[in-house]
């Protein structure tokens, strides 16, 4: 009888472990969010509900400055990386496999394979000599570094979209005497738009979250929100950091939801 009753969906203990995992995955984040609404300064003792930490964070000039810097870098890097990734995706999909293509794939995916700390060290060394040689200390280094590691995140959804696209529409446009530019502008690009949007979301989130590479590349006074928070966590912990974290989490979740809506398969 026991044999007959066997079901793959009900292996003993699996459901318990899975549910524990889901709870464990979200409980710490939810606690962190909850304590951003704590009336007291503590991150362990609940002293009642209050929104006071949000204005505290907002009125902190340093927080505003680093947030603005983070958003500037993320916006610039995501637009740049998505642009070049779109071109690369158009150049590498829907054609015969060649050796050069494998090389391009490898180079594009390289930031996903090399540990961040290694890239960070290499960039520190390289940019240090450029800084000495040119005297330029601006945000350009951070933007270049962020653009580079965002490229694979932008490229992958765009390529996936291109590969799933119907070629016949473009052939039809050609048959109707559309020039190749017209075909691209009025057929390929609109069809590709959700992929490009999705790629840009991922690039933006990836840039916004980066700690290690930014830490090594930034010049003095170029803290981003994550590097600023890292320094804060080391010094002392107040619910102010929880409030900033909560806002950052909210932004990420919004962007991710947009990403999933863009890439969702239509029935």
């Amino acid at each position, binding site marked *: 009888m026991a044999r007959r009753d066997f079901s793959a969906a009900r292996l003993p203990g699996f459901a318990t472990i899975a549910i524990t995992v889901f709870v464990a*995955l979200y409980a710490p984040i939810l606690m962190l969010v909850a304590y951003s609404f704590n009336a007291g300064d503590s991150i362990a003792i609940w002293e009642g509900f209050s929104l006071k930490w949000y204005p505290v964070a907002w009125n902190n000039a340093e927080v505003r400055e680093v947030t603005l810097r983070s958003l500037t870098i993320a916006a610039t890097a995501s637009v740049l990386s998505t642009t070049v990734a779109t071109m690369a995706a158009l150049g590498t999909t829907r054609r015969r496999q060649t050796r050069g293509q494998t090389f391009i794939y490898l180079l594009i995916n390289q930031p996903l394979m090399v540990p961040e700390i290694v890239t960070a060290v290499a960039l520190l060394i390289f940019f240090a000599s450029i800084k000495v040689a040119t005297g330029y200390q601006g945000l350009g280094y951070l933007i270049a570094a962020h653009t580079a590691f965002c490229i694979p995140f932008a490229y992958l959804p765009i390529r996936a979209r291109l590969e799933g696209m119907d070629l016949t529409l473009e052939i039809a446009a050609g048959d109707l005497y559309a020039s190749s530019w017209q075909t691209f502008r009025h057929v390929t690009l609109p069809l590709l738009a959700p992929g490009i949007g999705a790629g840009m979301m991922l690039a933006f989130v990836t840039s916004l979250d980066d700690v290690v590479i930014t830490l090594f590349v930034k010049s003095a006074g170029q803290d981003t929100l994550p590097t600023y928070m890292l320094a804060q*966590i080391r010094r002392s912990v107040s619910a102010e950091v929880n409030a900033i974290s909560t806002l950052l989490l909210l932004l990420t979740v919004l962007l991710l939801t947009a990403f999933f809506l863009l890439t969702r398969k239509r029935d």
Partner: protein
Amino acid sequence: MSAGEEKTARGETRSMWLLSSPALIILIFAAAGPLLIMLVYSFLAPGKYGNVVWEFSTDAWVSTVLTRDIFDGTLSLADAHLKIFWRSVKLSLITTFFTFLVGFPTAWFIATRQERSRAALLFLITIPFWTNLLIRTFAINQIIRTEGMLNTFLLWLGVIDEPLILLYTDFAVFIGMTYVYLPLMVLPLFAAIDRFDMRLIEAAYDLYASRWQVLRKVILPIVKPGIIAGSILVFIPSLGAYVTPRILGGGRNMMIGNFIEMQFGPGRNWPLGAALSVLLLVIVAAALIVYTRAATKEGPHG
């Protein structure tokens, strides 16, 4: 191949390089190229106030594992360095194993749900993966710190009389890495289990296979590529982890990543930092090669 076909092929190749070139230039300038410069730096001598002196030296490489006695110049194993390597490898392996231990049932659970709840559960696993690693690590820090929620709660319950010292231990780093890298194990495992035809299990049972035999002979071979992929995806970032050991391990429980960073700060030994980075890269490359070998060898039926 006709002349016309050859012409389109050449045109395709040209447009491929042309369209990819902006991305490639950025990647060579700000990702891949500097790795080669780092390799060169690992063979130079350290400058007095950081940076390097341009003279050839293998000291950095020697000092990754050996240490020179300051009095008689004899070489011996650098215990401090080896201890950090060992801690990194040990913690990464334990993390990989533990994420598998809890990740496999989780992936299995998701894969055996109805279509609708499966998509929702997958989304729930993906969200933490994309949320800020720093914030997630910080959340763990707040819970386990001495005056944190866990201790406050346990003291209130009366289970303990004194707060547990969890923060700034190897255990804290292990918990933190397991927490942040778990989605990287669950997702490939899910992909592998999802392809698995559950009727095979029923068939095996009908043929009087025991539970253990089903697991070993039917499930494992088919899910193996997912296990390998998940293990690599967890092991590589664990080994190069910087943020998690910094926030949860503190100054004393360093991992390779933190040790590398130190060489560019108070350590003032850029060549050693470069050599350690190259070493880490080689280990990661080896792991990736093992992975691709294993992945390509596995056919649909093992």
